Every structure is written in structure tokens, then in C-alpha cells.
């Protein structure tokens, strides 16, 4: 059994947890107390395919997964802090050997890919200025029904 999706999401959490200064990294948790900030959440991703070729239903096909990773911080310089977290995380993902190997191994014909899609932010006030930074990546890999 091999589930590329699960392997990517599990590794993403490890990469996110390794970002310098991150105090709390979780998967799919939606409730964060302020004393654990800066924190990061990895949300299980949307997955889609545009494969409509006329072939057996259990043939391998290409899927694109777009996980959301949300960094949270509360500080006077929250914008700069979030930008630093974003920078370290993008580097961590794009240069991570295990993630790159997962998509490459699943698609030996060169169809696998990791792409940074962008980020968006949201700010408010708590004890200090509070901010969210949502980072989007796309992972393209081959889903092989016979391996599930």
C-alpha cells in the first residue's frame, strides 16, 4: 500500500514544524491558544484531476493536490514575522529531498511537480497585533489505484 497524498501531507507537517521559531505545528487543528504562537497548521488538501481519457478506470492518472498551510503569529511586528515564516517554509518545501522524491517517484515519466501558488494574509488585534498567513502549494503526482 502506498498513498502519496498521505505521505506528502505527513512530510509537509514535519517541514512546517522545522521552520525556525515555530512553537506549535498541528494537522487540521483549528483552535490555537495564544501562548503557543507562532503556530502553523497543515490542512488536508483538495485533490482534483482533469484526466478524462477513455481508458480503464483503474489506470494510473495524474492528480493535483493543493494543501493549505496557515501560519499564525501575534506580535508588534507581526507582518515581518509572518514574512520570515513564509520565506523559511517555502525554502523548506521546495528544497526538501523527501517531498521532491515523493512526487518524482510517483511519476517516473516526469509528470510530478511541486509549485508554490502564493499566499494571502489576514490581520486583527488581540493582546498584540495578530496575523494569519495562508500559504498555498500544488503537488502534482500520479495516483496509482493498484497501489492503494
Amino acid at each position, binding site marked *: 500500500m502506498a498513498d502519496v497524498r498521505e505521505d506528502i501531507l505527513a512530510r509537509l507537517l514535519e517541514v512546517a514544524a522545522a521552520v525556525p521559531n515555530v512553537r506549535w505545528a498541528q494537522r487540521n487543528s*483549528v*483552535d*490555537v*491558544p*495564544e*501562548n503557543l*504562537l507562532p*503556530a502553523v*497548521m497543515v*490542512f488536508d488538501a483538495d485533490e482534483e484531476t482533469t484526466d478524462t481519457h477513455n481508458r480503464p478506470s483503474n489506470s494510473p492518472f495524474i492528480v493535483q493536490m493543493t494543501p493549505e498551510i*496557515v501560519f*499564525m*503569529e*501575534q*506580535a*508588534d511586528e507581526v507582518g515581518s514575522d509572518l514574512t520570515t515564516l513564509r520565506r523559511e517554509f517555502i525554502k523548506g518545501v521546495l528544497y526538501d529531498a523527501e517531498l521532491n522524491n515523493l512526487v518524482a517517484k510517483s511519476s517516473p515519466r516526469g509528470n510530478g511537480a511541486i509549485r508554490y501558488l502564493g499566499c494571502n494574509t*489576514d490581520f*486583527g*488585534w*488581540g*493582546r*498584540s*497585533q*495578530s496575523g*494569519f498567513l*495562508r500559504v498555498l502549494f500544488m503537488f502534482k503526482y500520479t495516483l496509482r489505484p493498484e497501489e492503494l
Partner: protein
Amino acid sequence: MTIDYSALLYDPVYAELGVPATLSVGTAGEVTITVIDETRPKSNINGTMEVRTTGPGAFARIPELAEKGIVRDDYQGASLTFNGRSWLVRSHELRGSPNGEDVGEVRFLLKAIESSDG
């Protein structure tokens, strides 16, 4: 006959719920006032994410501030110490009184001075 809400409402409430506070405005020095601690739980939400934090705040009586030489332009950036913590005024809103806003309350919206982790 006009009802004096300061004498009949605000002053007794502040006498019961108020705590001593020190307000520092720029180089004008410190004044001692009475505030009502309005620090409350607060949630900052983004999509399904929820960060549980604290919304620090305090109410003060505008007549008391005016009597001690504190005018509205002084509010922003002033430091306020009460109940063992020090804060900076990041914003404020006026709470009018039936006798007019000049004899009502001001709600100070505060932020931490020392650190972000509470």
C-alpha cells in the same frame, strides 16, 4: 429636571467596580485615574482557524480625565497601568452619556507593551 448620570450612575459604578490606574501621556507625566478593567477573551478567526487570545481594554470617565488635564488628543499612544499590567492605548471609542459625550465614558483599546506571549 435633568438627571445627572455621572452622579447617579457612573460614579457609583466606578466606586464599586473601578480600580486605580496610572495613565502616562507623552512627557506630561503620570496621572492616577479610576478605570474598569474590560479585558476579555477574544477570538481571531481566519477561515476555519481560530486563535484564542485576549482583548485588553478599560473604561474611564471622560470628566475625570478632563479634570486631570487629559484631552482626547492625548489618548492615542498613552500607557495605562492597572491590575498589575501595563498597556499602550492603540485606539479608543467614546461611549456617550444621556448628558452628552463629554460627560460619558471612553473605552480604551489596549495592546501589550512587554511581550506578545502574555
